[in-house]
């Protein structure tokens, strides 16, 4: 049984949505799944990362790349799946120019991983367990190119034979939002494990969704397979469109046809794929060029003992060790590089208790700056030691928040050390009594009328004077010093 919750963003409340996903993830590995050619083919000139096997030359034989197997084992262990000590590599047959052998080596009846789970957020706070049916390994296809010439199509085989993991969930997802959260968390996990880079734009992560709707309590509805969605935004729109389309069909007395549809981003609609694009029999059978994939249980143990920390383990550690809120910890671990940066910054702090302050600065100022400049974190050049210096300065009250933000802005642009910035631009906070007193005198002399009003009982003007003094000091004055000296000076002016 699948667990189902009422519709959230799409459709009407009278229907529930049931979604299962097939995620294709390119395996991080030096070479392809069965050949020695490079698997880092994205962006290379067409047909430059191609071996004789990759184009199915006569007599060429596949030899399994153990690194790809180990990567699948890593992911399998991380989702608490069962690693099959014996699995089978099968041939899946269909004709298409980018499928060089006429078959894809995949796994059909005996996949390498079975029965795992992944926790996702359903709504704001409720965790939900999504069951993962299986993970199997298979070859990627090449790419047909129809835009090079009006009359001729070309094929680029660079991608042909690159290792993929197909991660198949049970139909446990109930909304487009859950789908997006599932994919984000799965991608995050795979990045932590180093098994898939997960860049959808580069085709490293591709999603097919099986979608159906039903009235609560009814049997599962007829499912439609949505294929070839290569961005989360398109996926979300496609699901919304498809759910509403299916509900519309049923509400208008029609019925949903089991079919494969594809999403057209231009129209925002899904459309049926031509039947020729969908084979109904793949003639699966075990690849006679390969022996069964036998995995030693000791080998699985070795991989388990060297498994990198999962995002949820890091999340728990951040909450426990650094006292972060669940929410902040979740945001920090979402990007492995950010979480790593956070811990590096903290390691440079003299006082571990400032970790929370660090989290605030990363999630606040840093993220805002990244957003503002449309920069990805990996392209930002802030050194963790510099970030730590800035946090220290704030914590030690060497810098006001205002000044610190200014220093950060410069740091973000130039990558310079905050103390150098403070020095060069004279941004050090001034607590020196004489300097502060000087700024106070200037302000009080200028604001004669307001001073008189204050002395006659308008207490609220005190904050105004503080602000004016801060402004006069160009933000450098220590706010505490202003408070104390200003109160003193105003008292002296009372008759």
């Amino acid at each position: 049984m699948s667990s189902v919750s009422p519709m959230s963003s799409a459709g009407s409340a009278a229907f529930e949505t049931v979604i299962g996903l097939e995620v294709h993830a390119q395996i991080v590995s030096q070479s392809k799944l069965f050949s020695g050619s490079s698997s880092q083919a994205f962006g290379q000139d067409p047909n430059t990362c191609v071996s004789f096997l990759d184009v199915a030359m006569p007599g060429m034989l596949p030899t399994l790349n153990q690194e790809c197997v180990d990567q699948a084992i890593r992911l399998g262990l991380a989702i608490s799946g069962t690693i099959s000590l014996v699995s089978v590599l099968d041939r899946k047959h269909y004709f298409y120019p980018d499928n060089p052998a006429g078959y894809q080596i995949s796994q059909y009846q005996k996949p390498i991983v079975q029965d795992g789970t992944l926790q996702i957020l359903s709504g704001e706070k409720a965790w939900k367990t999504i069951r993962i049916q299986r993970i199997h390994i298979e070859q990627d296809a090449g790419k047909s190119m129809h835009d090079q010439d009006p009359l001729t199509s070309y094929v680029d085989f660079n991608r042909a034979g690159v290792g993929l993991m197909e991660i198949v969930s049970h139909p446990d997802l109930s909304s487009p939002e859950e789908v997006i959260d599932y994919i984000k968390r799965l991608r995050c996990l795979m990045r932590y494990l180093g098994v898939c880079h997960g860049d959808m734009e580069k085709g490293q992560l591709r999603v097919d969704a099986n979608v159906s709707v039903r009235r609560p309590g009814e049997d599962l509805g007829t499912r439609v397979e949505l294929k070839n969605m290569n961005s989360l935004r398109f996926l979300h729109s496609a699901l919304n469109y498809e759910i509403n389309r299916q509900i519309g069909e049923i509400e208008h007395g029609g019925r949903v046809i089991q079919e494969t549809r594809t999403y057209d981003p231009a129209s925002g609609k899904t459309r049926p794929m031509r039947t020729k694009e969908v084979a109904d029999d793949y003639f699966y059978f075990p690849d006679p060029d390969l022996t069964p994939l036998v995995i030693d249980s000791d080998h699985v143990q070795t991989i388990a003992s060297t498994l990198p920390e999962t995002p949820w383990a890091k999340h728990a550690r951040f909450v426990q060790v650094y006292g972060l809120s669940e929410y902040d910890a979740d945001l920090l671990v979402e990007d492995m590089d950010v979480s790593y940066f956070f811990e590096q910054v903290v390691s440079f702090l003299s006082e571990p208790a400032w970790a929370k302050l660090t989290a605030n600065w990363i999630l606040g100022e840093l993220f805002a700056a990244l957003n503002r400049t449309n920069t990805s974190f990996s392209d930002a050049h802030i050194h963790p030691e510099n970030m730590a210096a800035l946090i220290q300065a704030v914590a030690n009250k060497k810098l006001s928040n205002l000044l610190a933000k200014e220093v950060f802005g410069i740091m973000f642009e130039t990558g310079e050390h905050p103390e150098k910035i403070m020095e060069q631009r004279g941004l050090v906070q001034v607590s020196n009594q004489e300097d502060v007193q000087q700024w106070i005198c200037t302000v009080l002399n200028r604001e004669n009328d307001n001073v008189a009003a204050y002395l006659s009982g308008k207490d609220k003007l005190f904050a105004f004077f503080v602000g004016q003094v801060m402004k006069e000091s160009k933000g450098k004055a220590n706010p505490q010093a202003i408070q104390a000296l200003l109160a003193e000076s105003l008292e002296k002016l009372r008759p």
Partner: protein
Amino acid sequence: MSPLLKLSLDQVLIGLQSKAFSATELTQSYLDQIQRTRGHNAYITVTTERALQDAKRSDARWSNGTAGPLEGIPIAVKDAYCTQNILTTAASKMLHNFIPPYESHVTQNLAQAGAVLLGKTNLDEFCMGSTTTPVHTGPTLNPWDVSCTAGGSSGGSAAAIANGSALLALGTDTGGSVRQPAAFCGVVGVKPSYGRCSRWGVVAFASSLDTPGPFARSVKDAALLLNVMAGYDKKDATSLNHPVPDFTRRIGQSLVGKKIGIPKEWFENAQMDPEILDLWKKGQELFEKNGCEIVHVSLPYSSYALPCYYILACAEAASNLQRYDGVKYGFRAKNIENLEDMYCQTRGQGFGPEVKRRILLGTYVLSHGYYDAYYNKAQKVRHMIQHDFRQVFQQVDVLLPPTTPTPAFALKASVSDPVAMYWNDVLTVPVNVGNVCAISVPAGLSNTGLPLGLQLIAPSLAEDRLFQFGHIIESNTSMPDLPF
């Protein structure tokens, strides 16, 4: 005709070493013989220039003391082995223009051992058949009687040995494709253990059964060739990582007390010609005379080997041949309208009738709803046949059946009934399905003067037994000289 052609491998090696003649002279003699025997159509491609270059290299190596074990030996290679920069067609229009940029592992081994490549020999298209009658390159004729088939699928290699246009030759044996043409052409042919010789670079027919194998005029020559062919290859996941012995090591050793198994079901199943039954009987007597004991054994499931073989082989073939689609290399039909038309026209025109028949059969047995009834059941039967062989080899050292149920038949007869043609393999396919090894040795002549072969079967990796027992047949049989 040059007297060099009559020399055995041993004699040739001595002659080359002692500089009685050069590799170049030897190669030229064979190239001349190829021209003289063109009418048999044993070769698809003759690599004259390459052969003479190879021979020159060999002469240099004989001079500077770096000669390999087959240095300067002229060899014919079935046109299913990919040979770098040399046309490799598998006798199919589909590969009529295919020139591989790589060399098969086995032919690479031969080149390293010093062999001289004479050319690429004819075969049934993609090794599918037992008559060497491909549409694209035409039939190979039996040098003993040109109205008869040379057998197949490696008929070109067998004929090249028989007509003196090669000293050694390579074939591939999936269901008898080395042993049956060897029997029909009066030469020695070996189906080694599966995985003994790498399949890397051999155009695939049925991957789980394809076995590279040697042809030679004598048992010892075949063993010497297999010495060079065999060996682990990490590029082939089904290659056996097992030490390769000197396959000649048991030749000449006594057979006293050895047990020869006679599979009783094969009497009933094979519908053998009376003269084949007679040959079989004589073979048993021959081993008895040499001190062996004849044991009648049972391999009950081997009766199902033929249907089992045709299901598995066709399934794998249909899959292996999906790659020939006109996209990447080889034949592409002209005047095509769209993608589907390209596939249909290319494969419709590029493949001959037997290949199409087997693709259809294979596709059928793998299709949804029929998989369990055919492919899956055949796999189970295969395991039972393998079990039968394991049981039997606890009782006997080798099995002795004939190689074929009949002598070479008329070429004209080979076009009529495909199923009748498949029956021709009934004595050879159990070896491939049963995962054992076998040899075919010339053992007599038919009433009409055609050669007949006896087969010896040994457990996997026990090829040295084949040569030991085969040598006894050879040395106790008076065969006429090969017809050249």
